[in-house]
Every structure is written in C-alpha cells, then in structure tokens.
C-alpha cells in the first residue's frame, strides 16, 4: 500500500527507534542517536566517495566508529542522570554539526550529494532483523535484568552487585551501533545528506517513535516508527484526501503533535500497552491473616 521509499524509510526509522530503545531500557534518556546516525552517514559517504571502499566495509566502519565515539562520550556523560544526560547528549549533536559544517571532506553546510545508491532492500531487512533479534533476546537475559534494575532504581542496582557504569555504557554503545547503521544505510539510499539532518529535530523524532510506541517492549518503538512514518503517506493518499482534505506539510506535523499529546495523556506506556497484559492485583492469601495496607 506504500511506495518503495516509504517502506525503506520505515525500516530505517525502526532501526533508529530500536537504537533509542536500548538506552531507554537501561533508564538512560540519551538523545545522542541522531548524532551517531550522522557519524555513520557522513563517514559512510566519505568512505564510499573519496576512499572507494566496498559497501560492506563502509557499513562495518559506520557501525564501529560510532561505538568508539560512544565509549569516549559515554564514560564521562553517563554519570549524569535524567534530563541532564538528555541535554549533554543533545550537545554532542550540536558539536558534531559544527564539526561537519567546518570540515572540507564533509562538504560544509551544503553537505554531500550524489552518493551512489548502494542500499538494497535486503540490507534493510537484514539490519532490521539483526536489531530486532538483539532487542528481543535482551529481555529475560542477565544483562536485560540488569538494565531493568538500573532503570527502576540505580542505587539499589549498585548495592545488588550490578556494575551500573558498565551496563549503561554497553547500552549506549549498542545504541550508537544501531544509529550508525541506520545513518549509513539511509545515506546510501536517499543519496544526499546535510549537517542539519542530524540535529535536534531528528533527535526528537527518534524519541517520539519510542514515546508513541511505548518503550516497555522493543516492539513499541518499532511500531511507533512504522506508524509515524506511514502517517504522512496515509494523509496524502487519495482515499483520505477526499475524507479529511489533508495535505502534506504543516498538517502532518500538527497531527503528529496531536497524536503525541493523546498518547502521553491516555496511553502513557505507549501504543504497545494496548496489546500487553495488564497487571493483576493480587488476591489476599487465604493462609495468612489479613494485612493492613500502608504506605
């Protein structure tokens, strides 16, 4: 029902959503995904155009370099909690933008165009499969439990023997890997990149996927990414245009905002919470004396 480019964009956005899921699963509100995506995209474009590397080697580099940057950035910044980490990681994106604008190899403010199209559907399918597998296997693993403990209460996690610094860094680095992968695949799909593509707007878009979809399960962010990518197309399609008379443009942004607001108000755990089981309140145990509930 969707055009080819929309389906491809869905896969890339789903990768980005899984990237932010990894850090959210570990309780870290990092907004560095867009920056890591930018590193992957620019590095990939330069290696393809200037160095003539084969595409598989370009992809490997565009995954590994963001991971290395994540280690360097993560060690000091993951000490920050909550919104402070968000601000610091947004700062990373800004630093990256300034660097890209001022480097000759990256084409300055105009960016790089005419990158050859090298990403095929099977690349996207494989990348998405790997990312889904990774996040699916996380749940219920020793590391997954450690992530959940850190998300719930970092101090308690530490006194239970969980090396919180190590696990937060792992989450951050894996997240950077997926973002870099998404960046390089997108650059070799849509052919042109500019420094502005990886700034605040992209960072918030990625977060929105996770918020709308819900970050309790890895399926949530992926679902959010697919839906929010499809939305503008649905509104543009002939069927709907006759009904609601929407055009692409500000109306799409407006509707995105409305959806985000409705989800936050009425489904604080995201769309995915519509499908997951609700918690049952326990029934009192018959074998024990009735207990008074206190807080």
């Amino acid at each position, binding site marked *: 029902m969707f055009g080819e480019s929309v389906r491809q964009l869905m896969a890339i956005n789903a990768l980005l959503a899984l990237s932010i899921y990894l850090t959210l699963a570990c309780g870290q509100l990092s907004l560095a995904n867009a920056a890591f995506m930018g590193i992957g995209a620019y590095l990939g474009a330069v290696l393809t155009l200037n160095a003539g590397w084969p595409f598989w080697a370009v992809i490997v580099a565009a995954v590994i370099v963001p991971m290395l940057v994540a280690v360097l950035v993560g060690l000091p910044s993951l000490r920050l909690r909550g919104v402070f980490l968000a601000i610091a990681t947004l700062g990373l994106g800004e630093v990256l933008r300034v660097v890209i604008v001022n480097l000759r190899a990256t084409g300055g403010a105009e960016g790089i165009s005419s990158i050859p199209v090298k990403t095929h559907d099977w690349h996207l399918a494989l990348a998405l499969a790997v990312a889904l597998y990774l996040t699916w296997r996380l749940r219920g693993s020793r590391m997954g*439990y450690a992530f959940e403990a850190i998300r*719930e209460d970092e*101090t*308690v996690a530490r*006194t239970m023997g969980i090396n*919180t610094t190590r696990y937060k860094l792992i989450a951050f680095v894996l997240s950077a890997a997926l973002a870099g992968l998404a960046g390089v695949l997108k650059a070799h799909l849509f052919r042109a990149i500019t420094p502005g593509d990886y700034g605040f707007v992209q960072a918030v878009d990625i977060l929105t996927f996770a918020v709308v979809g819900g970050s309790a399960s890895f399926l949530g962010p992926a679902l959010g990414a697919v839906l929010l990518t499809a939305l503008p197309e649905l509104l543009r399609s002939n069927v709907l245009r006759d009904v609601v008379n929407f055009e692409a443009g500000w109306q799409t942004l407006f509707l995105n905002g409305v959806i985000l607001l409705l989800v936050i108000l009425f489904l604080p755990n995201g769309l995915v919470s519509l499908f997951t089981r609700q918690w049952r309140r326990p029934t009192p145990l018959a074998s*024990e004396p009735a207990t008074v*509930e206190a807080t």
Partner: protein
Amino acid sequence: MTLLRVEGLTRRFGGVVAVDDVSFTVGAGEIVGLIGPNGAGKTTVINLLTGLLRPSSGQIEFNGARLDSLTPHRIARAGVARTYQNIRLFRGLSALDNVIVGTHLRTRASFAARLAFAPAVRREEAEARETARALLARVNLGQREAARATSLPYGEQRRLEIARALAAQPELLLLDEPAAGMNPAEMDVLIALIRSLRDEGQTILLIEHNMQVVMGVCDRIVVLNFGRKIAEGTPAEISRDKDVITAYLGEEE
C-alpha cells in the same frame, strides 16, 4: 570467627557528625542488632557499610579485606546484601523478577552466549528462576510470583525485599528496619523468618526500632545515640543498661 570488623568509623556531614568513632564486630553466624533512637546514625552506618557513603575516617574490614574504599557493586560482590528502610523494590517488575535480579551475582551467562542460544545459558536462567521461586516460597510469597511488586501489601513487600537480598547468597545480610510500619501479625511472620535464617547460619546485622523484634532474635546488641556507641551486650544486658534506658526514655527528674 569475626566476619565484619568496624573500627573507629566516623562520618561527618558538614559540621554534623552522624557517626562518631563507632567500633563493633559481627561474628559469622551471629545476629547483631544495631539500635538507637531516631537520628542515632544507624542508617548512616548501613550506608557506609554498603559503600553508598564514604567514611570520613575509620575502617571496615570484611573477611579480612578492607571494604571502605570499594564501590557499592564490589562490596556486594564481596558478600554484603541489604534491604532498605523505605522499601525500594523494582516497582515495575513482578515479585519473581525482583528476586531474579537478586541472582545477578550468582549468574555468569554472557549476552553473546544468549544470542547464540547456548544451552548453558538456558540452564542457568532456569536455575536462577528456580532459586527465585524457592526464595519466594521461603518468605511465604510463593503464590505472589506474578504480582507486580508494589501491588503487594506492606508486610509482603518487606519480605520480598529480604528474598531479593538473599538471592545473592550474601555472607552478611543487612536489614534496615524490616519491621517498620508492620502490624503485629506481619511482625510475627518476620520474626519467624529471621529465626529460620539464623538456624541456617545466616549472619545478620539488624537495624531495628521495635524492641519485640530486637530482643526476640538478636544474639548481641550495639546501641548508638547521637552517632556514638553507648552500649554493647546481650539483649538481657542491654535491657538493664542505664545509658540505654536514659537514651530511650530520657533523664529522670
């Protein structure tokens, strides 16, 4: 055999000396009570023992090794587990999952091995789950496995925290006011639980206000007041101690 030796432990917060030159020992298999009026510095001692605070001076020795400069997760790895005065369960997790997190120190499986579906990983996860189930049964929460931790009644949350701490199989268990806010029926269940732990040889340092609990389970009691140790002895000795009575009931006119 001495398991824990605290020597001249001091912690200042600005001008306030919350813990002042406190020394005591806990022998293997002992249940030692740490009591004192509100603000006596009991929880600060526990936070120092678990590395959440650094001592201003003094030493903490555990199994012959110094703990006082280690990070909390290394102290936990050395064999110290704790509960919290204000219950700190993982709110979004089920009772069973809370305890499974507690097995972290007793499991090893790498994520890479799990990605490869290694049979050893599956075995270890099944074992951790069994251990957690057994511990829930142990604290009379066998039928609560699937319940969200924070939906449990208060007394059950306290026992769940103990089960979570026990999952690490600690050599030393620190209980920070486990009876706080409990009704008499819940307290009886708690006392029975602590006694059964003692029978298995679990070493416990018990911080508690409630004298019924303290007198009922402790081998030895250390009394703090305004950060200083004012008495130490058996429950019988402590209940006769003049300084202790003064600290709790005030000076006679």
